[in-house]
């Protein structure tokens, strides 16, 4: 799994590539923790190039959304497709998160 961060005026955008499984998900957690430690309160996660996510990844997404909500921040998700979208739908995560077609649409909502 690879991650790339881009800081915009309104939010930090993190693009995740590859597979987010029980082994790699903690790296994503650490990266989000670092972003928050750097002061980010609005984080957009771009899943365009994520091909696989398991419950370990979902748990990290939810745990960090809770942290951001607690400090009046937001976690926005974009570009869900294929297996990742299916896992979000089955777990009901598609109804509890703000999901956008792409990062520009997410930024425009802020």
């Amino acid at each position, binding site marked *: 799994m690879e991650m790339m961060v881009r800081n915009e005026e309104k939010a930090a955008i993190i693009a995740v590539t590859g597979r987010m499984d029980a*082994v790699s998900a903690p790296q994503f957690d650490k990266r989000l923790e670092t972003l928050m430690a750097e002061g980010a309160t609005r984080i957009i996660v771009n899943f365009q190039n994520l091909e696989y996510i398991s419950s370990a990844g979902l*748990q990290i997404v939810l*745990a960090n959304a809770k942290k951001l909500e607690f400090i009046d921040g937001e976690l926005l998700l974009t570009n869900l497709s294929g297996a990742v979208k*299916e896992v979000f739908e089955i777990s009901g995560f598609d109804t509890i998160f703000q999901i956008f077609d792409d990062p520009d649409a997410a930024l425009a909502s802020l």
Partner: protein
Amino acid sequence: MLTITLPASLSNLGQFIVPVSNWLKSQGLSRQKIVRIELALEEALVNISRYAYPQGRGDIEVHCQLLDENRYLIEIIDSGIFFDVCALPTPELKACVAEREVGGLGVYLMRKMADEITYRREKDKNILRLIFQATPDRNAGATPFNPGHRGIQR
């Protein structure tokens, strides 16, 4: 038929999943179906690695087998403490971010990915059988599953 036996550890996750995935690919299964099987297998393996052997080390055996022209069996066996995945309740899926509990989703996803699931305890072993139909590719929806034998949850 493919059999893999390795110590129950998250560090061995890839050593189980990659050969299983390659074997399924060699059988001509679609990528979409393989990803579902990988997900179910990961959730089962993670659960065993985290909870089956609280007192020490133990192994996990994974058997993959073509049952008939349309059905694949993934059998996962451990010698850890009794745990019937079929007996777990469905997690709350509608709660908002603040109220939604972190965790509890792995077994649920595993049950949703498999077309059939059975559990039995035999000679101090947990034997989990996940069956996947090669076709048609099923979209998300109700999954028939056999509750199997029930017992104490770990």
